[in-house]
């Protein structure tokens, strides 16, 4: 029989994240969403408690957690605020290419000083001309002696305006498609690197998002991750690692929506009794609970698969896709449960719907996840 119980250690990690989410994040979630505001003081506290560089091994100054442990933390944080959680875990995404593609010397040189203090990093893959078609990216890397020259623009980059380090994917020859893509580490201070204005977003408004422009940015050869042309594989393997925590993030939003809806249903009276006593609402809550439960179990299973050494491409795509669809649906039903009040910004559920929407789009749009799922699935029948 599979064992779904958490260890005492996992319980205490979850308790830490839950306490932080409730006391430090939740009280500021509505304000940061409305303003919008990038609450750097909260991110700094998350760093101080070890909640930021979760996937970086302890020897480089991170927390060194497996994917399941990361998921337990991410779900708790997202219960309080999806946007803040996106900013807190963006380092995991940005540093994963160094963990996967970096030499021991590069890991020492980049990760140790980076993790030794509060700093943010950004993962730069998506471009204005396309996100899902990563193989068709246009940012150029021209080799000139002992360095490369980067030219191009990245967009929708999380934490970019506040980051001190960028992992960047550029092509040495667009005609080579995926085989030309190469990964680099670029510090904020590099001449020619600029970030754009903060994007005005529908949700995740406590997170900061902007373009990153590279105009003749010199990158020494020793700051290239892996081989020339090896970047596409690094990017895809990075997303294999970080996709599952997005399932956890979506699950956290869905759980928050269910919690709000259930609590409200016990208080709100219509036709002389609490709406929780109306079957229409009971069925709604029961369906929401099923979606949340399934999202969590799929996420845990994908995480468990990866922690046991498998690639988990199929499992993580299923988890991310299902959980993000579930989050949107559950948030929608939570609004419906609140009725007119749910549509008002004064109540917490409309934010959940806006935050949930992004989880269907980022870290691989759900259309791409379904393409991946179908490919992995059909391989078993071919």
């Amino acid at each position, binding site marked *: 029989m599979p064992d779904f119980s958490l260890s*005492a*250690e996992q319980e*205490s990690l979850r308790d830490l994240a839950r306490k932080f989410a409730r006391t430090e994040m939740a009280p500021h979630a509505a304000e940061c969403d409305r303003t919008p505001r990038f609450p750097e003081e909260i991110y700094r506290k998350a760093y101080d*408690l*070890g909640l930021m560089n979760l996937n970086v091994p*302890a020897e480089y100054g991170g*927390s*060194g957690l497996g994917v399941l442990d990361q998921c337990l933390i991410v779900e708790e944080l997202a219960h309080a605020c999806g946007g803040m959680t996106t900013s807190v875990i963006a380092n995991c995404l940005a540093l994963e290419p160094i963990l996967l593609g970096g030499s021991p010397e590069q890991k020492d040189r980049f990760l140790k000083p980076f993790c030794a203090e509060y700093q943010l990093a950004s993962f730069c893959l998506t471009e204005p001309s396309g996100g899902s078609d990563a193989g068709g990216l246009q940012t150029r890397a021209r080799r000139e002696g002992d360095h490369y020259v980067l030219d191009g623009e990245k967009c929708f980059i999380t934490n970019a305006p506040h980051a001190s380090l960028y992992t960047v994917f550029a092509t040495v020859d667009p005609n080579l498609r995926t085989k030309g893509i190469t990964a680099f580490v670029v510090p904020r201070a590099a001449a020619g690197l600029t970030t754009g204005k903060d994007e005005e977003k529908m949700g995740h408004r406590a997170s900061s998002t902007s373009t990153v422009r590279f105009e003749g940015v010199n990158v020494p050869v020793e700051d290239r991750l892996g081989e020339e042309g090896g970047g596409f594989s690094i990017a895809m393997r990075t997303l294999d690692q970080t996709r599952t925590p997005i399932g956890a993030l979506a699950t956290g939003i869905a759980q928050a929506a269910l919690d709000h809806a259930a609590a409200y249903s016990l208080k709100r009276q219509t036709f002389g009794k609490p709406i929780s006593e109306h079957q229409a609402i009971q069925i709604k809550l029961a369906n929401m609970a099923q979606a949340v439960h399934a999202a969590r179990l799929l996420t845990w299973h994908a995480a468990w698969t990866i922690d046991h050494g498998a690639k988990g491409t199929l499992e993580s795509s299923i988890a991310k896709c299902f959980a993000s669809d579930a989050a949107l649906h559950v948030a929608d039903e939570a609004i419906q449960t609140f009725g007119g009040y749910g549509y008002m910004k004064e109540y917490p559920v409309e934010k959940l719907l806006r935050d949930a929407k992004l989880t269907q789009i980022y870290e691989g749009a759900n259309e791409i996840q379904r393409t991946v799922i179908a490919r992995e699935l059909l391989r078993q029948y071919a």
Partner: protein
Amino acid sequence: MEIVVCIKPVPEAETRLRVAPGGQTLDAEGVKFVLAGYDESALEQALLLKESVPGSKVHAVSYGPAPRTEEVLRAAIALGADLATWVEATAGSASDPILAAVALAGAIAAVPHDLVLCGKQAGDDEAGLVPSALGELLSVPDFGSVADLRWDPASSRFKFLRSTEAGGERWEAPTPCVIGLQQAWNDPRTAKLPSILKSRRALIAKRPLEPGAGGPHSEPEKFELPPPRTGARMIEYKTPEEAAQKLVRILREEAKVFP
């Protein structure tokens, strides 16, 4: 300075307590036990003293059953305690404050202690008897409701404030002594993730209850949950005047609050 902190695992504040069949114990099933309340402050104060007096050590001691007692000791280590001792209570054994004090005193007497810090009362039964019982059992002075606890190296004495109903009293005490703490210098800290991971591997010394400790001096006769709150009564009205008139009528004629 060798600081011993006595801590007790108590149900998390948000727990919905149930009385176990028979009515003499609370149902521990599904209840999360934590380090909380004054004990959390006592540990925080111990860590603050350790940080302000070089070479100090904090030793957390707890009496209770598995697994909750081990868990609060690990939580104390994650927060910064250097050592931990668990006096194991057998499962289902009753616990009263005097028995707990006997168990703790046995463990404390066996280790160096310049200061024994307790919460002034436990977060669950709030009996507040352990600090004074410890003072008696260890034959050292004890003080309750203490705040602003300082170590004065010049006189080698503790200086602190005791809050009383009339205000506050300034006291001094020698080492060793027992302090029941009301308030630490600041709010209890939160354990960091790496410390939590490290605390899982830390060694916890286990001690059996003293052979001559005897049984509990008191046993609960019956636990009862408070009666459920009766629903509020809403007054239907169209104008504030009408609401006030109806309320006055109810207060006078039904509740008979005034004639």
